[in-house]
């Protein structure tokens, strides 16, 4: 793809007097240290993992709708692909069902969303939006991609070792995860759970390196005049996300090291005394605590969910401002809400542990902080809604996805409130209600935000537009299917249907109760059908994406959306070093609805004119360094 081909005007490099050597194919496209190339690599890899993780779920949905029956057409082939323990005669084994569940979660979150939302969009857009030539540490940037790559590959490989991939949930709760995948039928190191742990260490390393790069870049490489409160909200969102990754991931890394020790060196970090497995007492010292794993896991786990949502919120902010042709409402509130959200996210984690027997004092603490953290989320969502008011809204494909994000995230967020109370959670914990809650936030929430971002920044990366018609063909079925999939899950959860039931609830009494005309179990069928249709609805997107790279309609200028932020002043696609002239920011990021010079917007790098100094609006003199 053409992301880093040098634009025709490369002579400016020689003016600088430093060597400009033509990099070979491998250095330019594969082992590049250019943030745009790395961003695109992260993007493509993330999308592939998202597709893979989603496919795992589509397979699971057959089992949930028609438990115990053979998956038609591809069932036998899958059984051969994933080994003898997976789908003999096309019928799913419980172990394989558990592997699919655990890996769906793990891959979607850590190999799909985080690389795409944080690393891909962040890498490509942030340096351009702040007027920087690249990230502060380009080699570290490349290293972070390759660490992610290795981690992702290890996760994939884990499907094909004896015993199959990890089965203990994406949360890998101990002591089950310590005793899982061990014994005579398993390799002591190349088994699903140990590979999961190992792959995770690479993924964490990748995120840490990337996050350090982002924070340093945003602090140090902002263009002259680009003060903190002139940053696009997308940059603020990535900044907070990076801090969450830097500070929250390491305790989980420590816990993973300890679980690896428990599995490979027979230590008892998480193993209590007196454990009996398959009738035989375990020959371990004991003295460990299973709860310790949960604390360290969720210490990351909660900030992680804000890692998943913040970049998408940032994208939605950019797309809404651009397509309503007015400034974002409440910029300062948005920034402070994002900062407070990041801060509070570190002290709410035990709301994932309401059923572990915590007393009233500690529970009261976490309930209070959990409820308080809903406030900044509401502020952000409200600011977005209010931003639409009175705008001249253009419903192009990015805007469709961005506006759909708003009610979808609203549903996801509001349905989290009952879960914040340990009393209500006593009933709802581990039911489909929880699945519906978090999927509403991540699936029609974050992923729609990411789709908006792809359609929006595609012309900057490639110099071509994605097709609008097929964009809408992608959007509408996706939106409808998302709701058909996840809305009934709230009802299933309230009936009492549990997560991770391999037979979809067929054998359980609560699933035989009726809700909205069908039994809880019967709802699995329309949900599964909607999931498969949603899979089909992604095909136009995939084709549109690749087709448009080479054959999409070429942009007429570098700023096809008439946007204000600095990335649109660079060529489409930008060359090595990004900007033909180093940008200087004179204004805030959302100067829309101010008619000047025949346009309804003013870009951030347009100097202040004398006529403007009379008005209070953009009268700030640039702060140059």
């Amino acid at each position, binding site marked *: 793809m053409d992301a880093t081909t040098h634009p025709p005007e490369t002579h400016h490099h020689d003016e600088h007097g430093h060597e400009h050597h033509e990099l070979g194919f491998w250095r330019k496209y594969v082992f590049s240290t250019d943030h745009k190339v790395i961003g695109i690599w992260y993007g493509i890899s993330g999308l592939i993992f998202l597709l893979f993780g989603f496919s795992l779920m589509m397979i699971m949905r057959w089992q949930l709708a028609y438990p115990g029956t053979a998956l038609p057409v591809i069932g036998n082939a899958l059984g051969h692909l994933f080994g003898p323990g997976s789908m003999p005669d096309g019928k799913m084994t419980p172990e394989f069902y558990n592997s699919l569940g655990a890996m769906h979660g793990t891959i979607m979150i850590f190999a799909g969303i985080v690389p795409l939302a944080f690393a891909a969009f962040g890498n490509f857009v942030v340096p351009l939006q702040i007027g920087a*030539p690249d990230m*502060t540490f380009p080699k570290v940037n490349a290293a972070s991609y390759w660490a992610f790559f290795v981690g992702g590959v290890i996760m994939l490989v884990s499907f094909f070792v004896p015993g199959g991939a990890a089965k203990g949930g994406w949360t890998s709760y101990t002591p089950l995860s310590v005793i899982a995948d061990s014994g005579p039928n398993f390799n002591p190191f190349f088994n699903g759970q140990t590979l999961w742990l190992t792959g995770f260490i690479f993924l964490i390393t990748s995120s840490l390196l990337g996050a350090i790069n982002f924070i340093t870049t945003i*602090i140090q490489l902002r263009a002259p005049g680009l003060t903190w409160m002139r940053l696009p909200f997308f940059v603020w969102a990535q900044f907070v996300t990076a801090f969450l990754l830097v500070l929250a991931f390491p*305790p989980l890394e420590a*816990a993973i090291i300890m679980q690896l020790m428990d599995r490979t060196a027979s*230590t*008892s*970090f998480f193993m209590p005394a007196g454990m009996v497995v398959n009738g035989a007492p375990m020959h371990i010292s004991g003295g460990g605590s299973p709860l310790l794993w949960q604390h360290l896991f969720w210490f990351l786990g909660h900030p992680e969910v804000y890692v998943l949502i913040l970049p998408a919120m940032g994208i939605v902010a950019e797309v809404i401002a651009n397509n309503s042709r007015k400034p974002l409402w409440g910029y300062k509130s948005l920034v402070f809400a994002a900062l407070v959200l990041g801060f509070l996210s570190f002290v709410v984690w035990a709301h994932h542990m309401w059923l572990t027997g915590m007393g009233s004092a500690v529970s009261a603490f976490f309930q209070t902080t959990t409820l308080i953290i809903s406030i900044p989320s509401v502020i952000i969502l409200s600011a977005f809604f209010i931003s639409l008011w009175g705008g001249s809204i253009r419903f192009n494909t990015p805007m469709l996805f961005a506006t759909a994000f708003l009610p979808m995230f609203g549903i996801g967020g509001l349905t989290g409130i009952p879960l914040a109370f340990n009393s209500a959670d006593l009933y709802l914990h581990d039911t489909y209600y929880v699945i519906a809650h978090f999927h509403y936030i991540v699936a029609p929430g974050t992923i729609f935000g990411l789709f908006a971002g792809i359609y929006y920044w595609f012309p900057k990366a490639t110099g071509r537009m994605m097709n609008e018609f097929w964009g809408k063909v992608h959007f509408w079925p996706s939106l409808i299917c998302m709701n058909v999939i996840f809305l009934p899950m709230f009802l299933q959860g309230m009936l009492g249907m549990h997560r991770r039931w391999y037979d979809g609830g067929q054998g359980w009494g609560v699933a035989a109760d009726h809700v909205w005309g069908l039994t809880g179990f019967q709802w699995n069928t329309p949900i599964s059908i909607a999931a498969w249709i949603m899979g089909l609805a992604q095909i136009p997107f995939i084709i549109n994406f690749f087709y448009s790279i080479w054959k999409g309609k070429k942009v007429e200028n570098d700023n096809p959306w008439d946007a204000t932020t600095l990335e649109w002043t660079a060529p489409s696609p930008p060359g090595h070093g990004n900007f033909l002239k180093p940008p200087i920011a004179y204004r805030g990021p959302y100067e829309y609805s101010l008619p000047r010079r025949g346009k309804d917007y003013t870009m951030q790098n347009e100097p202040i004119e004398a006529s403007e100094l009379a008005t209070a609006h953009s009268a700030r003199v640039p702060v140059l360094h």
Partner: protein
Amino acid sequence: MEIPYTVSARRDTGLWNAKVGIWLFLASEVMLFGGLFSAYIFLRLDAASGEWPHGLLNVPVGTMNTAILIASSVTVVLAWAALKMRDLTRYKIYMMLTILCGVIFLVVKLSYEWPQKFDHFGAFIKEDALGKYEQYLGNKHLLEKGLPPRKEITGHLHNHEALTDPNIKDYEIALDPVNADPTNPAMDRPHFWPIPATDKIATIEKEDVQYANMFLPKHSAYFASYFTITGLHGAHVLGGVLVFCYMMLPASFRLYRHNPEHLANRVEVAGLFWHFVDLVWIFVFPLFYLL
């Protein structure tokens, strides 16, 4: 294409890039070791009375290793100062000393401390069999003094085959002084100088043993924590030593000739990492060796 602020500071933040980067990295390391320390706290608080051992590590050697690491912290900052003063010879001397100290630290740990532990044996006696081994545990004496009970018999295992052969029914141990003479008041608290195992042999029946093993990570939550934290810390020491070696390679001296401040900055950043490693050890040493 030049990335600005790699050597000189940006005016509004007052910092050059790598300095911001290394402090962020150190923040993540604080959280990493913090996770391990929180595990230590959790496991130690959760341990029943008498189940968290004391006095099993060699304090004089640990103290010496601590001193070596502190010395290396001094030498690395002197190396950086020498570079800032453009004194290349002094820089080389201090950097070599730093590397030497780091290597000594690792060698002492990996070739003496750890193997010594692997060679030592401990058997936790079952709750209901504690009375049977009173002659080695001295719990009546401890109870009178208000001290926590002893539940473990330690020393040198004579019949190693007992660990793997189910047909062998007991362990033969050359007892440590604390189990050879448990009612001696001198044995109530750990000693500074390690006292070697005695010649007194005890036979412990396997059916009375809750769990027994050499002093490996799997021996107890204590040793699991000890080996994991010191192992991870040691990996960081090794990493630091390797980076310092790179600072002594021709490539670094070439950088010094053409942009000495850049090398000084690199050494400062590596030095910050090294001081953090020292800082972690300052907490590890008392928590595991002394308390």
